[in-house]
């Protein structure tokens, strides 16, 4: 858990800070959005409650069809 944060937070944080300092706001936003998605998924995996994508899509299809 701790390892996960130690690994991922700087991995996402430093590039975001670097991009902000270079005033590349759009880059920072894109990078942040994509990597935060990954971060969220990783967070749930590390907690042993993974967000299973196919089950989610299955449910969406079911509701859509019904």
């Amino acid at each position, binding site marked *: 858990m701790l390892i996960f944060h130690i690994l991922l937070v700087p991995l996402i944080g430093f590039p975001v800070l670097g*991009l902000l300092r270079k005033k590349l706001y*759009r*880059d920072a936003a894109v990078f942040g959005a994509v990597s935060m998605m*990954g971060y969220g998924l990783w967070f749930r*995996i590390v907690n042993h409650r993974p967000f299973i994508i196919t089950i989610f899509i299955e449910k969406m299809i079911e509701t859509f069809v019904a």
Partner: protein
Amino acid sequence: MISRFQFYLLTINYILGTTLFVLIQRLVKQGGQNAWFMPYWAGGFGVLVGLFWILLFRHYPGRSLVQIPLDAWGRPLGTFVSVLYFLYFCNLAGWVLRNLSDFMNGTIMPETPKSVFHVMFLLVACYTVAQGAEAVGRLNQIITPFLFFPFWLVLLLATVNWDWERLQPVFHSDLGAILQYHSFLGFPYMETIALTMLFPLVKQGAGRPFLLGLWTASVSLSMTLFMIIGLLGVERASRLTFPVYTVVQEVSIGEVIVNIHAIISVILLILIFIKLLVLVYGASETLRQVFRPQTRWPHFLALTILLSAMALSIYENPIQNGEWDEKYTFIYDSFFVLLIPFLLLVTTWIKRTFGKRTKRRMS
């Protein structure tokens, strides 16, 4: 720019990619002795779908799949659709990675954590994609002979265990069952939509090599199935998790040629890698074309984080994956592959006819 021949090879390897791993067993289960026939009609369907895309791309020369919605539907809706495509590519890439790690865990490295495989492949894939589409095309071109010849050579060596009787009786079992297996249309044929991201980069038009590649891949898939059935028999091929691997594992000619299954694992891994390359290229290009960032590397980093997470959260276990495959693959894929392009085509036509009319009225 990549050449037509490179694109042709890329199409073949993309389709064979995970198919040789995952699908052989299910196809044999569904089709019995006649499973080798299935790729032909599914490939025919794939060619039709391909023609449909080519029709769409005719209207937007030089534009890629995610730029077309931007052109047709305007910025906000177009961006939304492109983001959907981005997620679709990521999802497929996650799938590919997961298939890879399942294979590795199931055969040669049972104890290594899955993420190691994911991250390693992603690092290499990101490096390659960062060199541009040319690098992707050339890498594939260089590697293909090293896939093609060893694969068929190994399968030929395996024919010491060949038995014609395993293929009999021909066309006796229920042909309807073959036609019912619609998820085969979705995976791998409809997933080829990721290749359309490369369409504008192919010199002298991508249509013909794409369709030709689809058909070649179907033929080689059919040949592989034919050999698998002749070598393993329907009973075993429909139950083993990785029939291609087992076929080669059981080859032993004399004392020297034993244990050549390493070759087949390497081939399968490389095929998967090529599929991953195309998907990562699709995802990163989507980001680049839609959001137009100025830097490159941070986005690859973000992709690596996202994809490695996706790979772990695609499915919980292969049993659930099997169920998904039977019920939902076709619907899920056809949303991205048939529905959206169809809507795009319709709007294009409407725009064109209305545009003409307004023009005429103006003049």
